[in-house]
């Protein structure tokens, strides 16, 4: 166990590329038009993409966060379509794709959860199964391209409404070249009590993945969506710029769980936002283990009275990684409430940053908000920073903020070692304990996977 290398990426295998279509490297108007035409999209979507491309070209790179200066937009493939059509069953999938899934264990995950799996292989969802019972209740769960084809009116009225292309450079990029992602609609009063999940995966070197996810949880409904990501290792950098838009209607509740484990050369720049109406609840559970750089701040716009937003953020930064994560709570109506809990671990020279924004507008009376961020730094080379911002324009609010930065406690280490654990194992246990308040919110199979990833990250990291 001890001879494992740090950053020995478990899923770092790469299958031979076997694609039906691959757009040229780089981005311009004709690439965008080509993507839209291959997908036979309606005119309004083509216009949406082209408008977004113009915005993307005008927008400057964000300089306020992690270092993004090494991204070369001309060196990226913006669209790859792996197989002709969506396949209905496992056996219909090409063998190398099945092998890839076997290796990352998705069939096992699928067996354990009875709900359907939308597995995204490259830009297109190729494997999609969904339990009939939900379909009968009117729940829609499909990839975004299918969503656009089959439910153009819903998509048109929501797409870009919470995250317009002009929101930031990467949202604009995604709007121009998006492909795949999940589309979920839950009708009023329906509670989907088994998590819906999708596996995302990048398999072509230099390929950007720009999935777009849209979730609408209608009045009084409930859904839990789980997104887990793994990617193989490449010699050149990959870009992942996703956009996730969620609409939580009156009295509805949505939970969105992510465990992001991109390989250590991926730029993971994701915009996630939920609009929460009266008495609705939005919960983001966001785990960031992999990638070279992650910038991700799931946000809740609490627009209706009594709406609640919760953001649980977990970050682990190993050598060469910078996890710039956190969350955003916007209190835009009275009696709204929210909480951000952030736990970060940096090791082997890794860097974590907590970046959070809490804003309450004038008139948002009775707002209650609590922010807690804890950082654990495992060695002298590692680093952690906290950038909390609070903008409160209303007097009648309750705001709490707590932050701690700590190191592994020597007494804890000795205690566990005296029970037979090596220093590395003891450290992993303490780290697992530190992040437990967030891990306990993650579905069991994913939590196990997460603990395993932490263990791998700790090995060889001490001494």
């Amino acid at each position, binding site marked *: 166990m001890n001879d494992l290398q740090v950053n020995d990426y478990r899923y770092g295998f790469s299958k031979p590329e076997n694609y039906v279509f691959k757009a040229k490297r780089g981005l311009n108007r004709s690439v965008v038009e080509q993507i839209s035409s291959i997908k036979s999209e309606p005119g309004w979507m083509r216009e949406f993409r082209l408008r977004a491309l113009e915005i993307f070209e005008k927008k400057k790179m964000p300089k306020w966060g992690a270092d993004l200066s090494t991204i070369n937009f001309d060196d990226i493939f913006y669209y790859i379509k792996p197989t002709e059509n969506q396949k209905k069953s496992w056996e219909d999938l090409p063998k190398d794709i099945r092998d890839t899934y076997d290796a990352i264990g998705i069939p096992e995950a699928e067996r354990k959860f009875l709900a359907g799996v939308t597995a995204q292989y490259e830009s297109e969802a190729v494997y999609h199964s969904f339990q009939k019972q939900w379909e009968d209740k009117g729940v829609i769960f499909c990839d975004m391209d299918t969503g656009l084809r089959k439910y153009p009116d819903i998509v048109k009225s929501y797409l870009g409404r919470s995250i317009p292309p002009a929101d930031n450079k990467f949202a604009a990029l995604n709007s121009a070249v998006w492909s795949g992602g999940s589309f979920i609609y839950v009708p009023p009063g329906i509670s989907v009590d088994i998590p819906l999940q999708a596996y995302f995966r990048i398999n072509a070197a230099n390929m950007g993945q720009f999935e777009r996810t849209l979730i609408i949880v209608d009045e009084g409904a409930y859904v839990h969506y789980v997104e887990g990501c793994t990617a193989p290792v490449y010699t050149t950098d990959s870009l992942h710029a996703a956009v996730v838009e969620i609409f939580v209607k009156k009295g509805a509740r949505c939970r969105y769980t992510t465990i992001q484990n991109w390989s250590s050369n991926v730029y993971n720049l994701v915009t996630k936002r939920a609009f929460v109406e009266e008495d609705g609840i939005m919960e983001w559970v966001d785990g960031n283990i992999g990638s070279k750089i992650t910038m991700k701040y799931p946000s809740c716009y609490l627009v209706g009275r009594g709406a609640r937003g919760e953001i649980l953020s977990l970050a682990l930064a190993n050598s060469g990684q910078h996890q710039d994560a956190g969350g955003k709570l916007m209190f835009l109506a009275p009696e709204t409430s929210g909480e951000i809990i952030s736990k970060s671990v940096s090791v082997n020279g890794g860097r974590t940053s907590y970046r959070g924004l809490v804003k309450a507008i004038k008139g948002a009376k009775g707002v209650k908000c609590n922010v807690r961020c804890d950082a654990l730094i495992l060695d002298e080379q590692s680093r952690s920073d906290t950038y909390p911002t609070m903008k409160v324009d209303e007097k009648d609010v309750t705001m709490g903020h707590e932050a701690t930065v700590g190191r592994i406690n020597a007494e804890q280490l000795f205690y566990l070692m005296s*029970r037979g*654990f090596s220093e590395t194992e003891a450290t992993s246990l303490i780290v697992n304990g*530190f992040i437990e308040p967030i891990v306990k919110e993650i579905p069991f199979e994913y939590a*196990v996977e997460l603990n395993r990833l932490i263990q791998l990250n700790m090995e060889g990291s001490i001494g």
Partner: protein
Amino acid sequence: MLRISNLRSSVEGSSFTKASAVTKVLADRSEGRKEILKGIDLQVKRSEIHVLMGPNGSGKSTLAQVIAGVPLFKVQSSKFKFMEKDLGKFTPDKRAKMGIFLAFQHPVEIPGVSVFNVLRKAKVVTGNKKPRTRISSVRGKPVYSGLVAPDLGRAKELRQELVGYLSSLKLSEDFLSRSLNEGFSGGEKKRSEILQMMALRPKLVILDEIDSGLDVDGLKIVAQAIKKFATENPKSSILLITHYARILKYLKPDFVHIMMDGKIIKSGKASLAQKIEKEGYERTRNVLEQRPIKDAPRSN
């Protein structure tokens, strides 16, 4: 089993790994203390129960920690062996794997790590249970369990075993789900240490003031659990460190040692403990050193 002669120890700190924070922190805490153990001779054979008594600051806990391997202490000895192996060479985890278990006087809190989780993994690493390798297969490919992989069948088995121990400690099953030592009462901390001892079945158990801070009922529960352990694990040895003879109402030691000022000043049979309880440590020492008996304060 345990053979120690002329063991001396002072706080200076040799670390078990280069970058370890353990040494630094613990050394800072004990700043100002120099030589604590000044030539200890002790032999604990298989199946024996030894009691080590002495006043505060006599070095009892230091001896326990030196045997368990706290890296903060610099150790010199002419002999320091466990099962014929030179203990000084081994880190605390290796010593635990060899079968040494220290029940801490003040167990530290480990937030977020459940009692069950620690015991499940500790049983694997100490070789109490062999790690089961293949747990299932996915499409013909085996899936192996790592240290953290769930193994539901075995977890259930372990839970049943632990429930038995819990009932003898008068603890309920949900104790297993609590974070280790976090928010435990004094009595719960002691019982948690005993629970770990029972689960790990060590060859040598060092109980560092397991009886302190317990009320009469708590003491009885803990003492009876130790007795049960000794009966069920007849090959294991126990080194019990205490101020008081009261726990000896339940446990019959083979040997009693009196420790003062870093040395074992007298060893004897169980009756020695009674004598100490009656006469106090100072008086005993004065008698041994043939000093005139003053009105020495009784240790209680």
